[in-house]
């Protein structure tokens, strides 16, 4: 499990000059969002008033102030430095899939609180209200350039994309459907790991999903986005025939903070980032968001 504090520093959360309610539908609006108006100085103070809400966005990485329309058009990637802002599942749907082809499955599965864990019910309710999702993953069938696929997309804005019983079950069923319908499987991951609130049952979702993949004979493309960590990385996300990561994504089993505490040393530059994993031979490709759809399509053309 990766601690939330690990995720602040990295490629991450969009800072926008708008309030959550008027915010862009693609943004992960959460407690980690820091508002643009935090800037100091009179000049900036006055400037802030001049800027209409939500028109300007500051890049987390290079600090460039960007026109929001421009960055939206660029799929929430900074045109100056290629920094990939974290985005939600509905934008990944738009980026990857043929318009209007997504047909959701298993949206009738609901999370329970089998451990009667402290504040879990409340947390779930809040997440549902905040994201309009009922869990941190959507699954179903769709098309990419006319080709039928089975797809799962995780959403970090729903309890950190953590895997509990419903995520495990949805992934398992998606694997089974891909197998039964002879479709390639694409899973877009974004997760802090197993969901602590469901205890050992969450751990067993690693077993459920990883063992289910033994059934699959069609291609499985695993796409790792910021962040993909712990239990999700140590199960289906690492088991793709092809593993693709977005630039700068944090990808690792243990959280960087825990590692730093354990070894009492500074971590190497770029540690656990997509490019680091590529260099260490752990993933196939690092692909910019704008090229994801075409890359997946080309791979499926070869493999199907």
């Amino acid at each position: 499990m990766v601690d939330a504090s690990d995720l602040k520093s990295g490629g991450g959360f969009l800072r926008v000059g708008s309030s959550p309610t008027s915010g862009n539908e693609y943004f992960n609006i959460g407690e980690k969002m820091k508002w643009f108006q935090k800037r100091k100085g009179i000049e900036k103070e006055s400037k802030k008033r001049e800027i209409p809400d939500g028109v300007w966005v500051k890049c987390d990485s290079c600090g460039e102030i960007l026109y929001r329309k421009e960055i939206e058009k660029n799929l929430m990637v900074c045109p100056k430095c290629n920094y990939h802002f974290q985005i939600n599942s509905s934008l990944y749907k738009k980026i990857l899939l043929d318009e209007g082809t997504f047909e959701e499955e298993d949206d009738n599965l609901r999370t329970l609180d089998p451990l009667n864990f402290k504040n879990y019910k409340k947390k779930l309710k809040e997440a549902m209200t905040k994201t309009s999702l009922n869990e941190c993953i959507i699954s179903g069938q769709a098309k990419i350039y006319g080709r039928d696929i089975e797809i799962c997309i995780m959403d970090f804005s729903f309890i950190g994309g953590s895997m509990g019983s419903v995520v495990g079950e949805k992934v398992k069923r998606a694997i089974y459907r891909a197998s039964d319908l002879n479709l390639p499987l694409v899973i877009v991951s974004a997760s802090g790991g197993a969901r602590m609130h469901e205890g050992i049952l969450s751990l067993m979702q690693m077993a459920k999903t990883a063992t289910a993949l033994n059934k699959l004979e069609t291609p499985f493309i695993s796409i790792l986005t910021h962040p993909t960590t712990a239990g999700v990385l140590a199960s289906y996300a690492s088991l793709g025939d092809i593993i693709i990561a977005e630039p700068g994504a944090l990808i690792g089993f243990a959280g960087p903070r825990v590692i730093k505490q354990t070894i009492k040393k500074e971590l190497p530059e770029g540690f656990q980032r997509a490019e680091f994993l590529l260099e260490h031979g752990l993933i196939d490709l690092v692909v910019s968001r704008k090229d994801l759809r075409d890359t997946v399509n080309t791979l499926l053309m070869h493999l199907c």
Partner: protein
Amino acid sequence: MPKYLDFEKPIIGLKEKIEELKTLNTDRGGGLEDEIEKLKVRLSKVREEIFSNLTSWEQVELARHPNRPYTNDYIKYIFKDWVELHGDRRFADDPSIVAGIGKLNGISFVVVGHEKGRKTKEKIRRNFGMPHPEGYRKALRVMKLGSKFKLPIVTFIDTPGAYPGIGAEERGQALAIAENIKEIAMIPVPIIVIITGEGGSGGALAIGIGDRIYMQKYAVYSVISPEGCASIIWRDQKYKKEATEALKITAKDLKKFNIIDDIIMEPGGGAHSNHKEAANLVGEAVMKAYNELKDIPADELIQKRSEKFSKMGFFKEL
């Protein structure tokens, strides 16, 4: 590190008293037998009372007890003609996982288990039972000998978890765990998993796939350590007791959730109070499981194993 836990103090006190009286009795040439007998009765009563009212946290302490039998102890007591095998044939030999072949009741078993190491030097050498990727890879490699030569497999789980280090990440520990889970599921021989101490998350699950999952009475198995959970949910590690209760990690809890098949009893006073007896109980459980599994055809075994894990979890369907 203290050799006994706080709640064990009354037991240790009585044991010492009995030993003292025994010595005195020998010196005097007898006469204190009644006294000694009385104390022994008292000891078993006190022990019974303490052990029937353990909190979840006290069970965590037992699972981590410095004298608790480790994998090498179980191997010593249970398996004959033991040969340890080393290395993942890729990078290194990870001493935090031991692997090899030994005989029980005339049957050769592949055995794989975490090993924490007993003394300081040994603990460090074995990284306190926290594997690196090469440990999981060694485990899988040796388990595959079981596939090839049709030997049943026993795994012993006792780890605080995967090691959070740079090398472990560089060599893909998440991938190693994922591959173990997926591939062990397809091994066509009986696999018996025994959680003997700490079942620490992914590092445990990497050798935790099998046809029978047993847990010793005072072992624990969890998605995160109580301390880790406390620091996230309560924002302070000192709430580890609350976190332990919340996470529901005892053998009894796991049986209730259908994660494990059975609980293996421990000697009165816990496995650490009598390694040999604890090992006998584990050995019996291994044979019971083996006899249930040995005649199941490989295809069916694999299918049932996958079904077992595919059913785990609780959710609602609208």
